[in-house]
């Protein structure tokens, strides 16, 4: 089922199945690939586990770059639900907008959305760094456990609801903070971190324009007096 491409080449999804394309990419241990005519297909370039480079020329459906390890994936277009879900390492970049649950549950690596991200961006994130050039939708960083969500635009309602130890940085406005999410002091190490990750994401922004949000840690244990918080 794996195509004969060896560590480089063009895969045209107009005449190649998703299974064949993914099997080829998953088998490659290095090199650069281009996926042409993605046509909104789902689960493209998912489960990669080697340091290959993949450029997808167009819009993707759900779960593009899902569970990525080590690979550098660029989607030249928009991405559907769950782009880079559960990413472990490597980079997934979307030059357009991303639908719901971008970078959901990611454990590591970098997800860059150059446009806007929809609801639940970074939901349950577990260590991934996510940089969004535009806005993020409601319930972003919901139950976020670890990692960093950096938003250059605005954040929708209930940002960081029930957040654990993840950090959120927003340059624009926040419609409403979620339960147990509070604004925190921006210290020098945070400015340093922002300068670094913005550079890695290829974004231009002044770190001093951002505000930091994180957990108030008031809901880490069951207490009856917290019942009204939910």
């Amino acid at each position: 089922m794996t195509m004969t491409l060896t560590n480089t080449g063009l895969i045209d999804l107009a005449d190649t199945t998703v299974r064949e394309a993914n099997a080829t990419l998953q088998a490659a241990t290095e090199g650069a690939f281009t996926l042409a005519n993605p046509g909104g297909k789902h689960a493209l370039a998912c489960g990669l586990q080697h340091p290959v480079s993949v450029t997808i020329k167009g819009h993707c459906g759900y779960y593009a770059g899902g569970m990525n390890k080590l690979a550098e994936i660029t989607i030249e277009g928009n991405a559907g639900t769950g782009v880079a879900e559960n990413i472990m390492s490597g980079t997934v970049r979307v030059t357009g907008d991303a639908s719901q649950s971008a970078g959901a549950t990611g454990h590591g690596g970098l997800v860059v959305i150059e446009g806007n991200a929809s609801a639940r961006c970074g939901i349950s994130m577990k260590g991934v760094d996510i940089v969004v050039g535009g806005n993020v939708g409601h319930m972003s960083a919901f139950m976020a456990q670890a990692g960093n969500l950096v938003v250059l635009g605005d954040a929708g309602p209930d940002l960081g609801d029930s957040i654990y130890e993840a950090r959120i940085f927003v340059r624009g406005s926040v419609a409403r903070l979620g339960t147990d999410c509070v604004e925190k002091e921006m210290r020098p190490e945070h400015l340093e971190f922002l300068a670094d990750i913005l550079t890695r994401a290829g974004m231009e922004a002044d770190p001093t324009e951002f505000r930091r949000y994180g957990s108030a840690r008031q809901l880490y244990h069951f207490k009856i007096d917290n019942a009204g918080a939910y």
Partner: protein
Amino acid sequence: MTDQSNPPGGTPRTTPVKSATFDDYTLSEIRRAAATGIYDIRGGGAKRALPHFDDLLFLGASMSRYPLEGYREKCETEVVIGARHAAKPLVLKTPITIAGMSFGSLSAQAKEALGRGANAAGTSTTTGDGGMTPEEREHSNKLVYQLLPSRYGMNPDDLRKADAIEVVVGQGAKPGGGGMLLGQKINERVAAMRTLPEGIDQRSACRHPDWTGPDDLEIKIAELREITGWQVPIYIKVGASRPYYDVALAVKAGADAVVLDGMQGGTAATQNVFIEHVGIPTLAAIRPAVQALKDLGMHRTVQLIVSGGIRNGADVAKALALGADAVSIGTAALVALGDNDPKWEDDYRAMGTTAGAYDDWHEGNDPAGITTQNPALASRLDPVAAGRRLANYLGVMTLELQTIARACGKSHVLNLEPEDLVALTVESAAMAGVPLAGTSWIPGQS
């Protein structure tokens, strides 16, 4: 016997009557809630009396059909799970599997023992909400890896090590609820596996983070297959609530097998009110689920694995006769390992409970060393000996299952059928869709 309520020469009194509505348990729970301000959290499944497999009986062979010789003629027990789409379906020597239970809720010793017991019986074990440990992979020849809403510990490497993947939509003890693990059990290792602060009260999500309905789930399953190369079966687990529709939608979403967990199915921890008042009994769930598979032409193509209150070979036989392909055990497996053993009675008493009733598994003080992360308590469980006990128990259940199947004239346990059964009560007849014993009446059907 002297009637103490009417002493001779005294004024007659009526015997004190306790309310059936406000019984001793209810009163104690009201007092406990008033004193503590928190709902009751416990482990296990529904404890209330429910229509169950005991309400069904088998019709042994007689004039109209002949039995198989009990100790001579073969009665096959092997089942194959997940051949619909997977290149490598699971082949089990017995249709009794071990249900999902996490490292975290259980000690490492208990997880090892489950693997050892299942291996000896030729069946599978299942991870839980917290990921796969190297130890359980090592000790389980056939390991089912759960994909849960929390995604704690989820990673593609373990996904590819799994022999099957189980997408958990819900469980019988709490359909619509998420996982729970209180701080006493979130030690350093458990916290690291779940990327959580040590010692917090963990409350997992109840909805998956990246799909919201069966149409999305179909795409999610396609992604899982792409990551695992279409090699291993993918199950969908649902808590029993609307089994006809849930099973139909699971088939539509592309499941190779459906795990259906009734309200007697256990949990590591959740609210007692959830366990006892949400979901339906296992007995009531099987026939609608089987009907959904038959209506779609998928019965025996998509396997149905039933769990929730399976205790012995008769329960297994009845589940299979109603149309299941296999069963899962959780609570019973823990009891086989040593849970609630009377030999720890002094310890149970010290905690204000007794052997057989201990269900505060979330507190992590299990004297049997099973539902704990306390190293001293966990060391009480010898995983080799406990694994042997589980293997014995699985073997006995399988023999009991074969005994009943042979008596009904079946050369394979999957040949058991509803026509082999009758019900003892009107309720169980209606739920199971089999006649009330001694009649041809199936309530709701005839």
